[in-house]
């Protein structure tokens, strides 16, 4: 099926904008982007980010003919679309990419559920209208590998509820969203669920427009606030550069031919957490945290504000899950795609972008001041 019109939520976000780039680059489809609190400033920001992530001759002049920005809000019934707009769009949309989400690991619980859970319900209601009135073949629902909560061991793509507990409201909200997806699938809607791991900046430049979880960790590491963190030696981080994630998701969505399924969009090349923290600390010029092995950490030696922060990050710093990628590998088999390796050089590029953007502040001393000498 040749894609003619794709509808995207979360198109201003890091993954969303890269999905737009990938769709523009690899298809001839028109892309309709739902934007909350739509304004001229937002349009300008969207176009600026589009060029930052999708620079290339293919993008010249493309926005006028192939991109339509529409005002709306996933947290509202009917996505906050006017009836006229909904009536116009519903028959035209072939595929929906639902990337809108609020990624907050601390606070904002009400907003998190409104956007992530109820927002998904509102989106799927719209999708049903698109299917009934037009040619919708599937919804691509961007979820997270963190729906697995506190589970350990191997996590299968077909699994969702294994009785797990959740480390924060964000994880629970995304789990609840997938439960809603299951309901709509039972009603005949095709939904491809893409569970990503932690999304970071682009492979080549480390470009990002969002500084969530992994970046918050970098921020606090750069301040040297974590003096010691108990981390098992085998704990690993799963990071996916955003351009690779977007490419994989779009390729999988084409290959799935409008069916339903769950896909772990996670990087088979992981980085050891202790090595990562040592490498990052060295590049930042701050003392590396002391590592104490073992689980069942008692935080009596790490209280107050820093203890509260460590509680937030700790599940991700001690991760030993393995994500089955059977469906993802089958869909990507034979396609021009390679998962990028997360090595020290890539991590330095991510950090350099953070310095250049001002997200991380430079110190007067420190090895990162000599980054010009790094390749």
């Amino acid at each position, binding site marked *: 099926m040749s894609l003619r019109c794709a509808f995207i939520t979360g198109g201003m976000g890091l993954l969303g904008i890269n999905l737009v780039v990938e769709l523009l680059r690899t298809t001839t489809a028109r892309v309709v982007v739902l934007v909350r609190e739509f304004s001229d400033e937002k349009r300008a920001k969207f176009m600026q980010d589009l060029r930052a992530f999708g620079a290339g001759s293919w993008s010249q002049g493309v926005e006028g003919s192939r991109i339509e920005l529409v005002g709306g809000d996933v947290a509202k019934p009917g996505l906050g679309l006017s009836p006229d707009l909904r009536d116009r769009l519903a028959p035209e949309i072939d595929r929906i990419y639902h990337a809108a989400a609020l990624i907050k690991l601390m606070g904002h619980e009400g907003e998190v559920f409104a956007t992530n859970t109820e927002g998904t319900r509102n989106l799927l209601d719209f999708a049903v209208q698109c299917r009934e009135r037009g040619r919708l073949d599937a919804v691509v629902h961007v979820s997270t590998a963190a729906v697995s909560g506190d589970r350990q061991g191997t996590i299968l793509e077909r699994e969702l509820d294994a009785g797990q507990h959740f480390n924060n409201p964000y994880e629970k909200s995304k789990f609840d969203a997938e439960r809603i997806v299951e309901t709509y699938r039972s009603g005949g809607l095709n939904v491809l669920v893409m569970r990503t791991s932690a999304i970071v900046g682009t492979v080549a430049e480390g470009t990002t427009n969002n*500084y969530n979880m992994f970046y918050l960790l970098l921020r606090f590491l750069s301040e040297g606030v974590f003096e010691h963190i108990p981390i098992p030696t085998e704990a690993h981080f799963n990071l996916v550069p955003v351009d690779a994630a977007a490419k994989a998701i779009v390729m999988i969505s084409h290959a799935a031919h409008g069916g339903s399924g769950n896909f772990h969009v996670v990087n088979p090349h992981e980085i050891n957490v202790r090595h990562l923290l040592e490498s990052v600390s060295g590049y930042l010029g701050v003392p590396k945290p002391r590592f104490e092995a073992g689980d069942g950490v008692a935080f009596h*030696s790490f209280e*107050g*504000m*820093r203890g509260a922060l460590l509680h937030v990050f700790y599940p991700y710093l001690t991760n030993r899950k393995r994500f089955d990628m059977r469906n993802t590998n089958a869909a990507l088999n034979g396609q021009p795609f390679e998962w990028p390796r997360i090595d020290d050089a890539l991590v330095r590029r991510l950090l350099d972008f953070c310095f250049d953007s001002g997200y991380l502040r430079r110190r007067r001393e420190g090895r990162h001041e000599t980054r010009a000498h790094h390749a």
Partner: protein
Amino acid sequence: MNARERRPAGELTAQEKTTVNRILSAILRVPSVEIEGGNLLRDDLGMDSVQAIECLAVLEKELRLVVDPERAFDVKTVDDLYTLLRTSARQAQEP
């Protein structure tokens, strides 16, 4: 593991206040001389939620304090911050 002994909260020393202002200045990118007790951290100094946590975490480390995260919500001004830090328990110095 060294036992941590709590000492009662007390006044911030002049040096500690200088440290507070220095850290606020660095994180918020505001000249230190422009930081006054009555400044609203968000509206006057532009502090966002991440910077708020960052400041408290760094100050906790630098001043060897234990800051109750629940009390952070009450901090609106620089003076409030001094009060929070002044009334937070101190950690014992490690040998």
